[in-house]
């Protein structure tokens, strides 16, 4: 299931209103905008809804009024799915799910509603708590199988914030077979260990190969007891079996000794963490959608370009939908304009300009021979060529 269109509004008709307009997504997306234009907010709104839909998060009492409408699979009229949710004060005010031309479920603010029951062949009434979502509460593969699609989509959507540590300071404690939460993007050591355990060398080689393509040549990667715990004792003196606290280490081919994760540079670790997590997702659990905020943050020109190329190559396989944000010129120059959405910031509104709603401007820009960054920096996305006369001197 692919997310095609998002309509989102916070605090409709209030002074704090914030609305997202024109957010049509393709398989690969780069959302570009100035600081405080709403890039992160867009991803958060998608991630929040996905978290609610898969039960990873409950509705919290909050004053904010939120109104989402998500459209999936819109290329097929019969298969198009539209999910609508309005919440306020930790309660659902409205929830609606349409598949094709048919309404599948509607509920109101008291938790009462009607839902199509497949085996019964009719709508049935229900009432659920006002702080719960029908889409989650009524999961039933026999009576309401179409909710499964939306659950799978939300449950396998993962959001990364590239501008953060991505687990650099987090080591892996004994988990006693606890299931890893792939949404917890700080748990990179645990995810790496799972990848190594479940997929062995194919996982390790994939990580090494991806790191190499970004310009980090590593000959070995694994987990070990953090050096700080070994104090002055020789490693071999420790009965490693009794010490289960581990960190990641990498051996770079131009260094004599391995480097533990805490000493790996910030940019390299972000890259490593993202590569480990995405490779694990691709091998273990086909992700539906990967959100990456501030992609490339902290990387130099060559590595930013290589990182973005790697991610695009992976997304071009069609295995997942990729939505990234940036205001980094290197990243912008590495991503074809057809994948861009540029945010025009107005009071209370983030309006996205992309090839779907501004095709002529996007296509005209190719004739300028300028870098993609200039499309953003010169406001070409807003004005195009304008109709100015060419004055020759």
């Amino acid at each position, binding site marked *: 299931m692919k997310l095609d269109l998002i309509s989102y509004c916070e605090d409709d008709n209030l002074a704090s209103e914030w609305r997202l307009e024109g957010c049509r997504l393709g398989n690969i997306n780069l959302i570009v905008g100035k600081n405080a234009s709403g890039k992160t907010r867009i991803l958060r709104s998608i991630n929040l809804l996905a978290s609610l839909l898969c039960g990873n998060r409950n509705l919290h009492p909050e004053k904010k009024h939120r109104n989402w409408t998500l459209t999936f699979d819109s290329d097929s009229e019969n298969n198009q799915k539209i999910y609508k949710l309005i919440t306020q004060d930790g309660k659902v005010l409205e929830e609606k799910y349409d598949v094709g031309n048919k309404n599948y479920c509607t509920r109101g603010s008291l938790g009462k509603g009607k839902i199509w029951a497949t085996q019964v062949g009719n709508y049935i009434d229900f009432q659920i708590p006002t702080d719960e979502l029908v889409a989650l509460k009524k999961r039933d593969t026999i009576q309401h199988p179409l909710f499964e699609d939306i659950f799978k989509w939300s449950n396998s959507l993962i959001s990364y914030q590239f501008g953060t540590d991505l687990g650099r300071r987090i080591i892996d404690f004994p988990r006693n077979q606890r299931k890893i939460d792939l949404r917890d993007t700080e748990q990179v050591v645990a995810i790496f260990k799972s990848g190594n355990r479940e997929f062995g060398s194919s996982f390790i080689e994939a990580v090494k190969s991806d790191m190499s393509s970004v310009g980090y040549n590593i000959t070995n990667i694994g987990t070990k007891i953090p050096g700080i715990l070994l104090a002055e004792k020789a490693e071999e003196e420790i009965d490693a079996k009794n010490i289960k606290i581990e960190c990641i280490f990498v051996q770079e081919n131009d260094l004599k000794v391995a480097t533990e994760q805490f000493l790996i540079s910030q940019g390299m670790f972000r890259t490593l963490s993202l590569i480990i997590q995405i490779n694990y997702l691709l091998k273990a659990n086909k992700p539906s959608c990967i959100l990456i905020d501030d992609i490339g943050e902290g990387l130099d*020109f060559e590595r930013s370009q290589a990182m973005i190329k790697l991610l695009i190559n992976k997304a071009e396989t069609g295995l997942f939908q990729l939505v990234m944000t940036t205001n980094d010129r290197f990243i912008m120059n590495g991503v074809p304009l057809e994948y861009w959405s540029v945010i025009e910031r107005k009071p209370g509104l983030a309006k996205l300009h992309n090839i779907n709603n501004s095709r002529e401007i996007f296509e*005209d*820009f*190719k*004739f*300028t*021979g*300028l870098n993609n960054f*200039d499309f953003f920096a*010169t406001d*070409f996305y807003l004005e195009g*060529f304008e109709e100015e006369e*060419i004055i*020759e*001197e």
Partner: protein
Amino acid sequence: MRKLAIFVEGQTEQIFVENLLREIVEKNHISIEVKKISGRKKHRVSNPIVKDQVTIETRFYVLIYDSSGDTQVVSDIRDQCESLSSNGYERIIGLRDVYCKSIADKTSLDEYIAYKLSLERGLHYSLSTVIMTDPIPMNIVLAVMEIESWFLSEWNHFPKIDAKLTLDKIQTDLGFNPKTDNMETRLHPSSDIDKIYRLVGSSYDKNKDQINSIVSKLDYEFLYLKLIHTVPSLGKFIGYINLFLN
């Protein structure tokens, strides 16, 4: 001494422009420097090709950059304009073809013209967005569809290549007449030149000797005085040069 910089897309344009300038400006008054810029975007390197002596008589100094590619012309101008302006250059002219790989699949003249108009507008925009400390005029000229259309239009030179290459023979064998037809409507002029050469057992593959051979046989007086009125892109290019010279 007044200074002009001209950025061209390749060797053909570079050789033609150099010869044109030497023909239209009195020899002692012009000094020409030619540089070739090559390499990828972030690693552009320029190498000297020609550098005339500057004498007390030199009135015009023209620096010709061969940008080694059509898409590099405006990009190189944008990169170098600040430095050129601060070094006393008073005008920059860019010269490139309309024809490029991305339109090779287009088949009609209308498609080519639409592409040319979009490209012209795009490149003009690209130059108009440059911010310079001391702005100087920057112009871009598109040879339609290639600079070889200017060579075709200068029909006097064909018999100098081979006496058998008469206008009648070209008309009869290839179906167009460089004297009477508009050579800016030819979709792929370098291919036309090649076909003309093949009529006498030769070929045109843009090697340096061939370009030198054609360029040395062109009638520059005819180009400068007559063709500027009938070949608009040539007229525009020479017009910008005249603005500098005058």
